[in-house]
């Protein structure tokens, strides 16, 4: 009975703690968003953060996109061959990339490449008192450092996801049309007949915007909330990657349920 009681109170404690964290994190993000006008007044800050979050993630996104496309093309071809409809491989590659794999995989890669770097950067700035120093110079770190990092991530993510999907389709084309010899006309025309701009491409872009916002918010929050020691920062980086991955997958389920079920 007492064991049951302690377990229940532990559960209660955990729930209260996580709700508290969620509340603190949301207040933090609203604060960042409220101080975001600097991004428009000084676009250079935003450009620098888009370089940090976007350009530095380009290589991993391009290479992974290409390989995911190659694998999809190969697997899709092997499966569709049994039904004699290898022409549909373009449809399979394009739909899986545009709807799911593009936004999700690029968000996971983005979290581990750019998200962790954002957390580490803010955490180290906190540990070495750079943020305090900024405050004492009457410069608001929320506006000067965190808001540009957040928006840099939010804006980079959809572009990275689009590049990932495009590279994947090119990869699928290379393996099935160029290497295996599927008819190029069938590949493109079947793809074009079934990929809808509003239903598939636009929804994919919406997904990547949501994921980019979530990952960027988690990254800046974990950095700002990190314990200012070397160990604290490394733990915060781990939390960023883990929380981001879970958030992306959970949000993907919710968004997919809203977007792709029902009619059609």
């Amino acid at each position, binding site marked *: 009975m007492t064991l049951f009681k302690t377990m229940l109170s532990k559960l209660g404690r955990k729930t209260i703690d996580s709700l508290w964290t969620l509340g603190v994190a949301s207040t933090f993000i609203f604060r960042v968003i409220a101080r975001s006008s600097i991004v428009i007044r000084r676009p*250079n800050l935003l*450009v*620098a953060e*888009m*370089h940090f979050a*976007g*350009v530095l993630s*380009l290589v991993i996104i391009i290479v992974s996109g290409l390989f995911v496309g190659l694998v999809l093309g190969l697997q899709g071809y092997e499966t569709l061959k049994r039904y004699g409809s290898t022409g549909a491989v373009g449809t399979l590659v*394009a739909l899986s990339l*545009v709807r799911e794999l593009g936004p999700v995989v690029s968000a996971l890669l983005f979290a581990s490449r750019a998200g962790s770097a954002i957390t580490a950067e803010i955490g180290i700035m906190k540990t070495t008192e750079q943020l305090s120093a900024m405050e004492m110079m009457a410069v608001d770190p929320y506006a000067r450092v965190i808001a540009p990092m957040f928006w840099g991530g939010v804006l*980079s993510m*959809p*572009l*990275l996801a*689009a*590049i990932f*999907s*495009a*590279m994947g*389709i090119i990869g699928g084309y290379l393996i099935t049309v160029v290497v295996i010899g599927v008819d190029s006309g069938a590949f*493109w025309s079947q*793809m*074009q*007949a079934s*990929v*809808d*701009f*509003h*239903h*598939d*491409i636009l929804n*994919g*872009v919406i997904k990547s915007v949501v994921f980019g916002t979530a990952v960027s918010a988690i990254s800046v929050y974990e950095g700002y909330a990190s314990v200012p020691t070397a160990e604290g920062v490394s733990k915060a980086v781990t939390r960023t990657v883990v929380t981001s991955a879970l958030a992306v997958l959970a949000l993907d389920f919710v968004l997919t349920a809203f977007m792709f079920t029902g*009619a*059609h």
Partner: protein
Amino acid sequence: MERSVIDLWVGIFVALGIAALLFLALKAGNVDSIIKSEGYLVSAEFDNIGGLKAKAPVKSAGVIVGRVDNVSFSNQSLRAVVKLNLDKQFQFPKDSSASILTSGLLGDQFVGIDPGGALENLQDGDRVRITQSAIVLEKVIGQFLYGKMSEKNGD
């Protein structure tokens, strides 16, 4: 790093991203679906629509002339009601007929329109009178077997 170098790289990145989006929209998707052209709604009743779904293409002579807007069931006629959204630039005589066809043996179903010979054209809200239901494969096979059996019995 110099600011001009950062600016250049971010410029390349944004251009690549936009190019990728355009590639997805124009090369992977179909261009027509981006611009939702003005259309008019025409309804048709079928005994059986098989696996026809909303957004399936409507074709005439093999050309896509519109999309299925929605599918419902009428309590009065006890038949399926299919609303077709036809492109304004395509006009069909009032006595045209609609049939549900299948692309290939197992492919997706679509609505085919055979133009009639009337002088007046179909207007928004009109009904296509002559319809032909989907061919349901199980029924066809059933009829085929039934026919074979009655042939045997006749011997």
